């Protein structure tokens, strides 16, 4: 117990120590997170009126980001499956970063749920009267918190074992790893069911939403990890083998191809049928009755994903700069499509046929940016303390002082 307390204390101290660039990065993230907190305080005082949402478009940027970041959390499975199911060697030392990334992205997802509530002061009502299993939102709460608990347990256990220089007992983490794989898919399923079970919203009333969420997440998630691993490779002693990046690149290729295929199926069904059902898709892709706020967004997204996919399919993407460019295109494209492109059009036109557009306000952008910055702050700290532990430089039997920590 005392060892564990010391371990946590050392991690805490360690998160404040690093080279200049670490301070700059952490300072910038903290600043953005605080600006977001400030914007959220304004929202608490003045109400949701400070957002661009209305009775017509009653969900906006927050739920869009929720949809995206839940996907990023689930994308940890893209490393966990090759390592634990197919015994992939290159990725086995990197899989922990995917799991840590899942912890950070679920933190973001949960925060996006909280900032979307009109009465966050009544959050405890969830505990007192939980409409389970009828309301899909209760499933979402369970799926997010359960996935968080699984990943915190797996990462925490493995890292603490390394700190104690013990061989981790398989019984204590392997079963959880396999549960986490299934759980990752179920987070996507539940996230999709949140939307596609609503008969009054034809745009969401599509069975292909869950597969589309998985495909897009498995493209954008590993893309973020490819970039994160390159940063780790560059700024730490932790080496990331080239083959690992190429394996991830393969996963992105396949997932984005599937995502494009599913998008094409959906677009065909909507537009060829050309029933009243198509109104929202028409609004998204070509505009409806002269309103087309989302049209530039969705075509940017499709364009980025297509060009990014082509880049990743060519051998040029073996070079790290081009690989990064391709990955950034995947991330931005999916962020637009799985956020704004999935959530907003379902509200336009309204169920009574009114066309009211949604434009996020500055305050909403600031809150969202703050949450993303906070998530990356969490991820950076987790990686920051994990690397010295895993490389044996931070262990229970080594004297430690964060201001003057010595290499072995």
């Amino acid at each position, binding site marked *: 117990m005392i060892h564990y307390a010391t371990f946590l204390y050392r991690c805490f101290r360690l998160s404040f120590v690093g080279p200049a660039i670490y301070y700059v990065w952490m300072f910038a993230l903290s600043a953005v997170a605080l*600006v977001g907190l*400030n914007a959220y305080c304004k929202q608490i005082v003045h109400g949701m009126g400070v957002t661009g949402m209305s009775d017509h478009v009653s969900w906006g940027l927050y739920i869009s980001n929720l949809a995206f970041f839940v996907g990023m959390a689930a994308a940890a499975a893209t490393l966990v499956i090759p390592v634990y199911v197919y015994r992939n060697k290159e990725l086995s030392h990197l899989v922990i970063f995917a799991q840590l990334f899942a912890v950070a992205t679920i933190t973001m997802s949960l925060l996006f749920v909280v900032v979307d509530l009109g009465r966050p002061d009544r959050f405890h009502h969830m505990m007192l*009267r939980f*409409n389970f299993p009828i309301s899909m939102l209760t499933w979402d709460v369970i799926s997010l918190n359960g996935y968080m608990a699984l990943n915190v347990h797996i990462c925490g256990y493995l890292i603490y074992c390394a700190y104690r220089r013990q061989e981790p007992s398989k019984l204590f983490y392997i079963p959880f790893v396999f549960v986490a794989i299934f759980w990752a898919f179920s987070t996507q399923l539940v996230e999709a069911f949140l939307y596609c079970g609503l008969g*009054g919203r034809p745009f969401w009333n599509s069975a292909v939403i869950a597969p589309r969420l998985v495909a897009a997440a498995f493209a954008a998630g590993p893309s973020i990890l490819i970039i994160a691993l390159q940063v780790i490779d560059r700024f730490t002693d932790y080496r990331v083998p080239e083959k690992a990046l190429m394996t991830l690149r393969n996963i992105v290729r396949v997932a984005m191809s599937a995502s494009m295929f599913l998008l094409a199926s959906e677009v065909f069904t909507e537009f060829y049928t050309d029933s009243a059902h198509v109104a929202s898709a028409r609004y998204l892709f070509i505009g409806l009755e002269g309103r087309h706020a989302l049209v530039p967004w969705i075509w940017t997204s499709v364009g980025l994903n297509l060009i990014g996919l082509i880049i990743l399919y060519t051998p040029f993407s073996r070079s790290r700069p081009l690989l990064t460019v391709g990955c950034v295109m995947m991330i931005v494209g999916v962020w637009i499509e799985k956020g704004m492109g999935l959530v907003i059009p379902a509200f336009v036109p309204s169920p009574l046929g009114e066309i009211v557009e949604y434009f996020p306000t500055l305050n909403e952008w600031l809150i969202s940016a703050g949450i993303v910055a906070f998530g990356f702050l969490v991820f950076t700290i987790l990686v920051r303390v994990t690397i010295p532990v895993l490389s044996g430089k931070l262990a229970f039997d080594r004297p430690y002082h964060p201001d*003057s920590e010595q290499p072995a």
Partner: protein
Amino acid sequence: MSLRIWEGKSAGKSSAPNFSRRSFLRTGTAVAGGIAALAAALNPLRELKVEEEFSIDKFLQKHYKEMNAEEMEHALERIRREVEHRYKVRPDVKDFRAKNGVEFVYALNLSRCIGCRKCVHACVDENNQSRAPEIQYIRVIEMPRGTLDLEKGNHHYDRPTVPDANHFYMPVQCHQCANPPCVKVCPVEATWQDEDGITVIDYDWCIGCRYCEAACPYWARRFNFTEPKIPEDQLNPTMGYLSNRPRPKGVVEKCHFCLHRTREGKLPACLEACPTGARKFGNVLDPESEVSQILKTKRVFVLKEEVGTLPRFFYYFDERYPLSLDPEAQAVAVSMGYASAESTLAQGEGCGGSCGCGKGSCA
């Protein structure tokens, strides 16, 4: 060259604890700066009216269905106190319960609706909706003859006189569905269907997630995006816990068939305000009631039957006047100054919409 971030900045320094004045000052400045930044970020919270918006009473108040009589009285007393403090009016707040053997149903005669929107405003006055921004439970849609596609309707028609001969008018409010999607999705059971068929909301339990707004196919629900504002002299002091008591910001509200009136045997405010008698309301379990007769004898329909919500809100056209407004309603519109005499004449001419020209007045 790669930086090794876990080594600290001074790899060569002694590992002994180093509490020099310089490091103390540096750490102190950083901590103080951090706290100052956090305080600055939290600064807007100072505008929060903590004693008005949060109280231990409210925090501990149970879900409507879990309160016993004493706890309900306690909650009602708190509401009376708050309303009196804010609006300088002592309200009559009660908990109106559903009665046995009653299932309320609404029927709306589209041949009689002249689109005057009197129901909309009577509803706002009755139910203490926010006036700025104004929240309305009823939406009247001006529909071209020959279609029921709501996307072809106009919500914001603004004519010098109504009704327009080429359109019919379709008021939409909460349909009090027998299979309500809004109730299904609520994560905290803040909204439910009572025994008499009215879907109600406990405004003190709603967490403001707006999932019900997304689920409703009739766009019946409204969210309080800001603190509702009602002028003191416009407050209706007769209030129900589940109906028209003032709502806080951040919760959802909607039409509740004026349950504080209808559960006491009165009629909804929108019905009483209707000048043409287009609105009919009553207990469908009573075979003699007007609504029962209408359901039996008129060709009623519900909106969006295909979404399976089983609404308790029925529409019908009067078979006697397939091509035009009920002359009685038209006369009312003229006598009240909503319509001009010419538009009455226009009714008799042309196709009346039956040919599908979309204008309703081709020769």
